[in-house]
């Protein structure tokens, strides 16, 4: 407050800020360097030789990285699409209406956001076995809905809480049918919410590990599984390249939606799971 302008205060803030910046980017740096390194052994601080080998390998047809990338994108898109489909109506119910049992419904939806995947996925796995859903892409998509739907519902509930349904009544009174009203009035109004919520739901699905590992049974190898395998087998250069590819959608989505990513929007709550 009073001493805000003082030199001491501002240089202290600058130094702590610089420290914070360093710490925030630090873990990403060795990953980035490794992806261009050729034999980077202890105790060299930087690689003696640079190469694009890891990237070439990652983008080659034989490595499976690209297959895994398309598979992961497909799974996340499907999970996002399904979440939007069921999340928008549920968000409307929670955002626009007061009803008996609402807090119980909210609790049901909140629970999967807090309870870790490992606690439920073992039970799901033993049921999915009997249904033939294990080791399959549909099974993985289905199980990804557990973290993505609650998230989508919460975002949409926030959108609908600030939405005035009188516009719909106005459209109906002007002669629009119910589907036309939805298409021309409701959808444009909630579209920004759907886009932001959808992008974040995509990221939530994109980052799932244990759900995919168990239900996919090692047959459905999404990018995080591949990354984990390379990381634990000591292929640091390829790990670095896959790691860089893996964080790319998040960065793109961040640039698209930066203003929605402040803690003020309920959207940020779901980032505890990524």
């Amino acid at each position, binding site marked *: 407050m009073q001493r805000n302008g003082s030199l001491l205060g501002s240089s202290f803030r600058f130094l702590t800020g610089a420290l914070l910046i360093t710490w925030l980017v630090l873990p990403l740096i060795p990953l980035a360097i490794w992806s261009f390194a050729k034999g980077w052994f202890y105790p060299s601080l930087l690689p003696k030789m640079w190469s694009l080998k890891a990237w070439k390998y990652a983008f080659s047809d034989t490595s499976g990285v690209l297959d895994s990338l398309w598979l992961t994108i497909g799974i996340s898109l499907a999970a996002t699409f399904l979440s939007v*489909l069921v*999340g928008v109506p549920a968000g409307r119910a929670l955002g626009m209406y007061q009803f008996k049992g609402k807090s119980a419904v909210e609790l049901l939806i909140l629970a999967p956001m807090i309870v870790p995947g490992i606690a439920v996925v073992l039970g799901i796995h033993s049921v999915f076995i009997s249904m033939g859903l294990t080791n399959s892409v549909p099974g993985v998509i289905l199980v990804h809905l557990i973290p993505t739907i609650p998230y989508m519902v919460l975002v949409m509930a926030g959108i609908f809480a600030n939405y005035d349904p009188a516009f719909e009544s106005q459209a109906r009174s002007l002669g629009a049918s119910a589907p036309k009203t939805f298409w021309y009035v409701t959808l444009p109004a909630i579209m920004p919410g759907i886009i932001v919520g959808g992008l974040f739901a995509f990221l939530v699905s994109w980052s799932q590990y244990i759900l995919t*590992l168990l239900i996919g049974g090692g047959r459905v190898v999404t990018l995080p599984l591949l990354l984990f395998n390379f*990381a634990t087998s000591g292929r640091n250069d390829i790990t670095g390249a896959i790691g860089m590819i893996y964080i790319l959608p998040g960065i793109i989505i961040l640039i698209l939606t930066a203003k929605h990513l402040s*803690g003020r929007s309920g959207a940020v709550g779901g980032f505890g799971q990524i």
Partner: protein
Amino acid sequence: MSDRFKIGLLLFPALSIIVVLFFGGLLVGLMRSFNYMPVIGLTQPDLSAYVSVFTDKEFYLSFLLTFHIAFTSTVISCILAVAAALLLRRQFIGRAVVNFLFQLNLTVPHLVGAIGILYLFSQSGSFARLAAEWGMIAGPSDFPALVFDPYAIGIILQYVWKEVPFIGVIVLANMQSIGEDYESVARSLGASRWQAFRHVLLPLIFPGMLSASVMVFAFTFGAYEIPAILGANYPAALPVLAYRHYTDVDLAARPEAMAMAIIIALLSAVMIYFYVRFSRQRVRS
């Protein structure tokens, strides 16, 4: 169409998926942990899985370790997040960069952070190399074990890296909507800077801070891939132990894995209780 019916119809798809998958999964897990599964001929529930879990020393070590990881990470992240939010409230050179990195960090999956921490802090990692460069260590084994270590330092470092921005962004938004006037009032009534923070700002941000921390605690208690990459083999974190039991060649270990999953779920139920309590409080004030 009555409102009740309409609301029911709107909620039905989402709720049915969540109830069937999530609560179904929990229920099946619960039944299997009691060795009860009529479909496959197990009709006599028993407590054998819990007995063997609770008589196993590794479980206790694992539980303590996991609790230590979750508790320590949450407390450290929370303190640093509040400090960072206080910093970000002020104008300084580089603030926009910190803000951007906070948000960037939210989108980077934990797994990537874990690998980054591994490359930084392992005994042949970047910091070990720096130490060697400065002649502080003779060889990799002289560097303190910060990953795969019994105190889970690497795991905690990873969580702190990832959760400081998460709690920080929420607390910062909280502080911005509260504004600075409450503290100004306190100062003009005679509170020192510290008193204004301690008696005014902290109680105001407390509910938001706590509900974010509850999410962090539940996540760090139940995450698998981070301790799987950075943790020691023995004792392993509870989710890792549960996974190992579940995928054990000996199918008899599965109910034990289920029992551990149920224990994790119970702990998260306690977290949900706190979350609901504090987020309600936040709405009220």
